């Protein structure tokens, strides 16, 4: 057992990685799903134990192949990536019980083995990209997750052919982003000679004025910006989330962009450090306006959507704007907000997309028109949408509120008045699009020709409600999440070089 804990960092990724090929060997039926479920739960368990370990006894460094860093690849777990790992594996652990029926409904039964294999690969990639302490290794694992994500998105083609073009666009932009990231890493390597993040952080300070470093910074940020759908580079996201199968949307929306945000944070704060002049300038002159534009344009676009999945996809663009804004604020509160929102947004979008998956299971397409009057026929599902929607708006006692609280705190700390006002103004846009749905579901008349609709099965409702309850629980008792996030933020700003 001690062996297990000693190698937990490696097992966190290696077990899902091994399980993926095993999954592809399985023959149909429930087996692939069951394997994915077991692995997800193991990963969840591993991430919890890692987080506890980190909080108890400081950073964990695991040397792959027993080669000391910076020569070999190092797994470096500190509070932030333990936290992100927890988000990823937690969402996966909740999403999989939900997945079985939804996937059975939306994906060709003969491809379930491949589907869950791709899912496990995606999980592996996200976990691996998060946990690693090596810049290039991030690229490799993010590409595993991206490639499998393209496949997973394209799996929606059975429902709607637009999944294919969505996946294609995602692929092109994702690859361009990854390549930019690689260029950035190359430039950094060129002048420092190392790929290990800790080592990079040590070797960069004398090179502040080096133009290659600055360009490398820009490339890394733009590359990851593409992957995280930072505002003008978000074009792949809405369609990809809209046409992917429900489970995939749940998983990707809650985790994939989060990991990219994490990578950005890691580079901004651990590797470069906000004390660099150009980093600060980026915050103020690039991140800030882009984040605000994202918040407003994303929300505004969401208001005009008729497809609910796309509506929430656009809302994700806006929410990512909040995370970027938190970074742009550049102080502890802002950063806490970003880290918190990684978690909180995963909770609310996970719940919302799960609920939409339940609706899709019953009525097929999820348009604003289609859900009219469904509130009475699927009370639990729509109550969940309402609950998670409130969280999205940022109503107090939900997680969304906590994030916004810290964001505004951060803005005020900087004395950025208008920003604080804009933050609240943008959450008002969220009221509009969330309420559009509530109103249609509860106060609209059912469209003609729709027969009676039954409530989603318990197997899907239970995970959904777990997420909704979490939305409220962590909104009322935010102590755990905020203390971790606050600790992370403080480390970044204080301890980070």
């Amino acid at each position, binding site marked *: 057992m001690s062996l297990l804990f000693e190698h937990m960092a490696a097992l966190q990724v290696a077990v899902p990685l091994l399980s993926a090929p095993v999954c592809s060997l399985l023959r149909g039926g429930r087996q692939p799903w069951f394997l994915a479920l077991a692995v997800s739960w193991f990963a969840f368990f591993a991430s919890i134990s890692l987080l506890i370990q980190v909080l108890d006894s400081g950073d964990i460094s695991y040397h792959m192949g027993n080669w000391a860093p910076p020569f070999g690849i190092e797994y470096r777990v500190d509070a932030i990536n333990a936290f992100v790992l927890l988000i990823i594996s937690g969402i996966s652990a909740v999403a999989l019980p939900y997945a079985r029926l939804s996937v059975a409904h939306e994906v060709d039964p003969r491809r379930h083995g491949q589907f869950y294999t791709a899912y496990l690969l995606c999980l592996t990639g996200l976990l691996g990209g998060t946990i690693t302490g090596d810049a290039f290794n991030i690229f490799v694992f993010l590409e595993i997750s991206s490639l499998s994500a393209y496949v997973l998105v394209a799996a929606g083609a059975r429902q709607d052919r637009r999944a294919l073009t969505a996946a294609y666009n995602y692929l092109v932009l994702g690859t361009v982003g990854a390549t930019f990231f690689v260029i950035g890493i190359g430039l950094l390597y060129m002048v*420092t*000679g190392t790929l290990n993040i800790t080592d990079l952080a040590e070797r960069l300070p004398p090179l502040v004025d*080096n133009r290659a470093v600055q360009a490398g910074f820009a490339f890394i940020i733009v590359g990851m910006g593409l992957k995280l759908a930072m505002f003008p580079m978000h074009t792949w996201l809405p369609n990809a989330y809209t046409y992917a199968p429900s489970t995939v949307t749940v998983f990707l929306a809650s985790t994939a962009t989060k990991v990219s945000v994490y990578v950005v944070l890691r580079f901004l704060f651990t590797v470069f450090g906000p004390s660099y002049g150009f980093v600060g300038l980026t915050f103020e002159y690039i991140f800030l306006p882009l984040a605000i534009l994202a918040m407003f344009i994303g929300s505004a676009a969401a208001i005009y959507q008729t497809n609910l999945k796309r509506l929430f996809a656009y809302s994700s663009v806006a929410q990512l704007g909040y995370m970027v804004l938190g970074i742009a604020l550049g102080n502890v509160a802002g950063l806490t907000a970003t880290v918190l929102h990684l978690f909180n947004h995963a909770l609310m979008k996970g719940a919302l997309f799960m609920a939409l998956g339940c609706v899709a299971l019953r009525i097929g397409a999820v348009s604003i028109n289609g859900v009219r009057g469904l509130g009475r026929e699927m009370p639990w599902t729509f109550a969940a949408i309402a609950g998670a929607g409130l969280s999205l708006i940022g109503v107090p006692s939900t997680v969304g509120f906590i994030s916004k609280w810290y964001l505004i705190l951060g803005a005020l700390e900087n004395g950025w008045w208008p920003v604080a006002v804009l933050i609240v103004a943008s959450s008002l846009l969220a009221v509009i699009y969330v309420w559009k749905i509530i109103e249609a579901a509860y106060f609209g008349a059912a469209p003609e020709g729709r027969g009676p609709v039954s409530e989603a099965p318990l197997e899907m409702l239970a995970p959904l409600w777990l997420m909704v309850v979490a939305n409220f629980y962590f909104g009322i008792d935010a102590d755990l999440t905020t203390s971790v996030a606050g600790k992370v933020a403080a480390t970044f700003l204080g301890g980070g070089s």
Partner: protein
Amino acid sequence: MGAEMITIVNIVLLTMLCFSAVAIMLLRHLFAVAALTGAFSLLSAGLLVALDAVDVAFTEAAVGGGISTVLMLGTLALTQRREHRPPRFSLPALLVVIATGGALIYATSDMPAYGDPNAPALQHVVPVYIEGSRNDIGVPNIVTSILASYRGYDTLGEVAVIFTAGIGVMFLLGRRREDEDDEGMVRHGPGNDPESSEPEETAS
């Protein structure tokens, strides 16, 4: 003398690469593009040899000249052989590209010079790899020892990537001629699909 020749070779090859890239951009016959892509890969592989990256050249030739050309041909065979729209100028694209190129050119001014034996990249980790490959691992090919041992974990990821691609292509293109797969894949979305009336299985 040899070294300078290599430099010249580099530049000539690079120029040819640029030329063939432009040709690829301009040509509308996609099979011709495929053929040129093959040439492009061979050229870049040649350049890689000139730059001492033999392993990479090996891979690039096998992958770029071989597999990806074949894949592209396969795609063309299943789609179309001509680009319908004539090449058109795109200002936003140009601006993005210029910004990217500008950033890189900006960066070049502080980069170590080409071939600089004192470049920082050579000083830090690499000597350990060379010695380690000689003594600890005992593998003459340093690239292999880094690839398989020092950074073996990256390579594990790399295999996973390839595996993902395999799973993905199987997922997307499936096997329609397989005996066990006697039913056609469901792949069309609703809507006005012009080919939906075509039989899924085309006997050969």
